[in-house]
């Protein structure tokens, strides 16, 4: 072994050792860092929604909305969730592994605007949708519309045109004072959420209740009447509470109020939900497919290219270890299409080696010395490897941008893995295989021609001796 090869060899050894350490780290912890594989929605189950703001909004409103949703997501206790702005008026939310996706999404996108309204002495039924001065143009829930549409005798439902005056402003809700209260006494066993207004709203509420004792006043959440208690005495301090039938409902309201109200209402443009069992099945299938693919390619390489094929297979294993280490360390979320991209990149990784070995064989046939044949093989294959890698990188980049433009993380995963595979493959094919080959051919015993299968390609007779 000469000096020229020692440095790259040690470098390869170092990289491989480091990558193996990360890839096979016990308990998925590496230097105190969590390096467990992050699985995408299609592999571990979960839900993804693309939400669009209703009406025209500016970027400040959207970033506030994203912050509020992010806080609510944390309140739900979903780990590894993603909340991301997309374009001018969209938010992408990904909730991996969430148990009840419908409930979660409902909680996230409920506006959470809490109001006291002046009903001029009228009682309103719970669940009635009303216009308020805070939001005079609410939408009826879809369930109401569907029910009405199913029965042609019913008139098309519409919201009472009366606009009730809001006494409080949702922005004056003191989020620190929002709390869940589960009564333990038998008198009121229903769960409730207590809250308090501050500032101008608290003053207004005190003034209004003082003037309207023994009259009803309604609490409205997102334009739906929650309850209409009768004012017993002036409410000083602006506090009140909402009772609910179930603890889940109470928790939903708690989450919406506690993390602030959304500055804009959001409708759902697209959604994708995958169950955990389907995801687990996909993981199993992908692991089997990946292993089978690797083994078959390895056998082919060794049978067809002999010694160089064996070295290329070792390089391929190193490649696989490094790519896993990168996924775990960055971390890059592993999706089903990402795995397909990885398995496809195995084929590409081999391609660079195939190009080099084909050249190597030609040089050996031309009776070059082994050392010079190895060098010439790499040098002459390089332009083709470079140009073809570049063209694949270009399309990966376009795929990535495309995936980005409509929020499909599945396509992005594929593009990212493919691009990463090509870059790494330049390293493994050009540095790793080359160093191995150089070191091996210095050894006389590795010069037997059967190790290289030089003989039989069709163009030998057509190649005039140089």
């Amino acid at each position, binding site marked *: 072994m000469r000096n020229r090869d020692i440095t790259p060899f040690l470098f390869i050894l170092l990289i491989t050792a480091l990558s193996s350490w990360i890839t096979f780290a016990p308990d998925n912890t590496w230097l105190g860092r969590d390096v467990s594989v992050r699985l995408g929605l299609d592999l571990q189950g979960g839900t993804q929604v693309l939400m669009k703001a209703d009406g025209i909004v500016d970027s400040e409103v959207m970033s506030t909305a994203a912050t509020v949703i992010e806080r609510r997501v944390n309140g739900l206790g979903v780990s590894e969730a993603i909340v991301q702005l997309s374009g001018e008026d969209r938010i992408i939310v990904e909730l991996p592994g969430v148990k009840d996706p419908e409930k979660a999404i*409902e909680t996230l996108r409920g506006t959470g605007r809490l109001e006291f309204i002046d009903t001029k002495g009228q009682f309103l039924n719970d669940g009635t949708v009303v216009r308020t001065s805070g939001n005079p143009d609410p939408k009826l829930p*879809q369930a109401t519309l*569907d029910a009405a549409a199913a029965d042609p005798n019913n008139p098309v439902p519409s919201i009472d045109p009366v606009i009730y005056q809001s006494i409080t402003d949702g922005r004056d809700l003191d989020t620190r004072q929002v709390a869940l209260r589960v009564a333990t006494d038998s008198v009121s066993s229903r769960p409730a959420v207590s809250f308090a207004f501050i500032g101008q709203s608290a003053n207004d509420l005190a003034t209004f209740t003082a003037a309207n004792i023994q009259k009803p006043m309604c609490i409205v959440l997102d334009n739906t009447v929650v309850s209409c208690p009768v004012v017993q005495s002036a409410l000083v301090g602006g506090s009140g509470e909402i009772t609910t039938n179930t603890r889940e409902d109470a928790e939903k309201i708690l989450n919406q109020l506690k993390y602030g109200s959304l500055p804009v209402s959001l409708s759902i443009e697209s959604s994708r939900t*995958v169950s955990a069992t389907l995801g687990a099945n996909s993981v199993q299938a992908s692991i089997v497919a990946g292993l089978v693919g690797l083994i078959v*390619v390895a056998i082919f*390489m060794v049978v067809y290219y002999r010694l160089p094929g064996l070295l290329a297979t070792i390089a391929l294993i190193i490649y696989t270890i490094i790519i896993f280490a990168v996924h775990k360390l960055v971390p890059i979320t592993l999706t089903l299409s990402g795995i397909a991209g990885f398995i496809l990149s195995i084929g590409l990784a081999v*391609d660079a080696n195939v190009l080099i070995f084909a050249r190597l064989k030609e040089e050996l046939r031309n009776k070059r010395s082994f050392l010079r044949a190895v060098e010439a093989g790499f040098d002459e294959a390089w332009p083709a490897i470079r140009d073809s890698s570049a063209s694949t990188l270009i399309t990966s980049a*376009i795929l990535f941008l*495309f995936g980005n433009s409509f929020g499909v993380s599945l396509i992005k995963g594929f593009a990212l893995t493919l691009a990463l595979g090509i870059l790494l493959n330049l390293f493994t094919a050009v540095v790793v295989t080359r160093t191995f080959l150089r070191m091996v051919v210095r050894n006389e015993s590795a010069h037997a021609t059967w190790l290289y299968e030089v003989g039989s390609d069709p*163009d030998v007779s057509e190649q005039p001796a140089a």
Partner: protein
Amino acid sequence: MKSIVGLRYVWFIISLVVIIPGAVFFALYGLRTGIDFAGGALWDLHFVTKQTSDLNTDDIANVFKANGFDSAQVQISAVKIDGKEVASAVVRTKELSATNPEQQQRDILDALTKQYGEVRRESLQSVGPTVSGEATRSAAIAVLGACLAILIYMTLAFNKAPNPFRYGMCALLAMLHDVLVVLGVAAILGYAIGLEVDAYFLTALLTVISFSVHDTIVVFDRIRENLAHRRAGETFEDIVNHSIVQTLPRSLNTQLTSIFTLMALLLFGGATIQNLVIILLVGLISGTYSSIFNAAQLLVVWENREWQHWFRRQAA
């Protein structure tokens, strides 16, 4: 082995024979677009306690209809989960409501559970009209952008060879060949077995594009190199033929390894990405063919300006 270039018109005709039936299907029936591009919702439901014989497409469609989803298309099949056979239904409907999709899902699942016992929603995707419209636009932009970027790159990379623009154009034509083959096969499979064109399909198509160019570049690189060491009396046709023969083992071997890995994915990789893999297989085989039998031959046609003789030859 001179015939690889000599018989170029035979190879072109074989390409046409493959492309034309697909093109006819494409013209007659178009592509069957999935919800990614057409909008709508796709429900994958598992009926845990039922056999496929207990289910009926009309009954399930009626449950959907009663909950506001008219004209639901239902497909029933058996799926193996953890070794147990489970009845499954894939239902395609219009997209979920933008304002209250959560309640819609609960209504449907409640209604189905009432009728069939435990129902699991394995997956549900819903794509609204704005998103699907944008997806279609982005898809067109992505494919055109990829073509343009590759044309520019090829022209730059081959700027030392004479007529670099030709290399770009011929690689692009070979790539177009593969796009046509893939679209044709997708149209035929859409008609025959209901293969849907979705975001995965687009991913596969763009991968085919890049692999096709990848293969062509390897051949063109040889031509570039052999042109630089041109010997006396060698025609352009000789050089091209020689270059193709030299790269043939590599083209076939790379093709083989890709087919190995794709077959592994097809056989073991699970149903979700099966369409992606089928399209990739078709595209890669077409890509290898076009890079061996079309791309470099087009360079020769261009070099000889053979189109000037096309009609005269027929007259003679």
